[in-house]
């Protein structure tokens, strides 16, 4: 049992806004929560490269190709910052990846949907990155120092992602009838999955209370989701597309009321039954397995170099 005095001191630090650093004492549950959340976050960035990489060879202009490459590279970079931050909790990257492959560690379910048209590149940037940013801006103030610092860096870099996605959608929405249709369909596809990104309702989110008390989470799932909805609906209307929710309605307080999410689908995809769950994991495992001999070579060569120095 952890003694109450230590717990109280820990809580006092959090309440005073003092960041927790890797070598500081922390409750086991705090560490476990971070291990789970940060690795999930890192995996999401890395798995998130896949639906976009799917369009890299087909990007329609020099400009679009460069942007998409830079963006995918950013996502991978963010995964890397997060793995490195998560490793300060005493778990190795190798272990995190093993958990991912064994299905013990999750990633954002939103990446288990396919990206059949170029408009999906727009919708992913605009909606998926847009939803992620709302969450990440909030996490810049999270109580674990390495996580907060990684978030600050990530938010700075992510700022162009949502804009590039919206630009693609805006361009297509005013393009040929076929393009507009593709844009609307992509919006329809990604609207609900991006709202699901904020997680279950607060009342059903088992870890939320404690995470908020410990300053790991700063705002509730429903609050963050509402912020995103309120920002996004006017953007949908501005480019002449339709919100794929007949019940979406502007309330007198300036906020939008929307239909409830299909929670069966949400839990189903989390459990691994989404359209691309198995494809995404297989892709990641294959790259990892195919790379094993390269890593072995680099390690062997690295050791020889060190011996030469010694």
């Amino acid at each position, binding site marked *: 049992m952890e003694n109450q005095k230590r717990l109280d001191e820990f809580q006092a630090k959090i309440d005073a806004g003092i960041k927790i650093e890797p070598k500081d004492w922390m409750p086991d549950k705090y560490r476990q929560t971070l291990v789970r959340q940060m690795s999930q976050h890192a995996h999401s960035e890395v798995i998130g490269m896949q639906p976009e990489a799917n369009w890299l060879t087909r990007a329609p202009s020099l400009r679009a190709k460069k942007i998409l490459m830079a963006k995918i590279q950013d996502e991978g970079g963010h995964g890397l910052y997060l793995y*490195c931050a998560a*490793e300060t909790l005493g778990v*190795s990257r*190798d272990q995190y990846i093993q958990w991912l492959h064994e299905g013990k560690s999750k990633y954002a379910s939103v990446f288990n949907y396919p990206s059949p048209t170029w408009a999906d590149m727009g919708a992913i940037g605009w909606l998926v990155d847009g939803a992620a940013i709302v969450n990440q801006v909030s996490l810049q103030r999270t109580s674990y120092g390495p996580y907060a610092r990684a978030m600050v860096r990530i938010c700075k870099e992510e700022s162009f992602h949502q804009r590039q996605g919206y630009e693609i959608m805006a361009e297509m929405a005013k393009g040929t009838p076929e393009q507009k249709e593709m844009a609307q369909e992509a919006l329809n596809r990604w609207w609900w999955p991006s709202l699901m990104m904020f997680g279950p309702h607060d009342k059903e989110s088992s870890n939320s209370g404690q995470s908020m008390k410990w300053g790991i989470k700063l705002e509730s799932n429903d609050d963050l989701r509402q912020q995103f909805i309120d920002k996004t609906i006017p953007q949908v209307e501005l480019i002449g597309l339709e919100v794929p929710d007949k019940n979406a309605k502007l309330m007198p307080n300036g906020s939008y009321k929307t239909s409830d999410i299909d929670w069966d689908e949400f839990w189903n995809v989390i459990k691994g039954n989404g359209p691309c769950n198995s494809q995404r994991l297989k892709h990641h495992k294959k790259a990892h397995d195919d790379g094993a001999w390269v890593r072995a070579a680099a390690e062997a060569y690295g050791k020889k170099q060190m011996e030469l120095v010694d």
Partner: protein
Amino acid sequence: MSTDNQGPVWEVFIQTKAGKPYRHVGAVHAYDKEMAMENARDLYTRRSEGTAIWLVKAEDIVASQPEDMGAFFEPSNDKPYRHPTFYVMPEGAKHI
């Protein structure tokens, strides 16, 4: 291979421009020094964030322990005479 951790961890310090101190920005994995340098460059200077890089293998860093915080750092709290603001200067004194 004993562990397949994508190489050991290296801590990365970047100098934003000549004359500025090096600041810790994060870490990379790499199997040798040259690779660590290239990875740090590719990862942490994509947006012209720096002009120079220092790398230290994470296992080689010697760090103070939180338990030592009191013994290490509190004694200096009662030595305000190490700070210039401790001293009373006569009214009107300049360039001091």
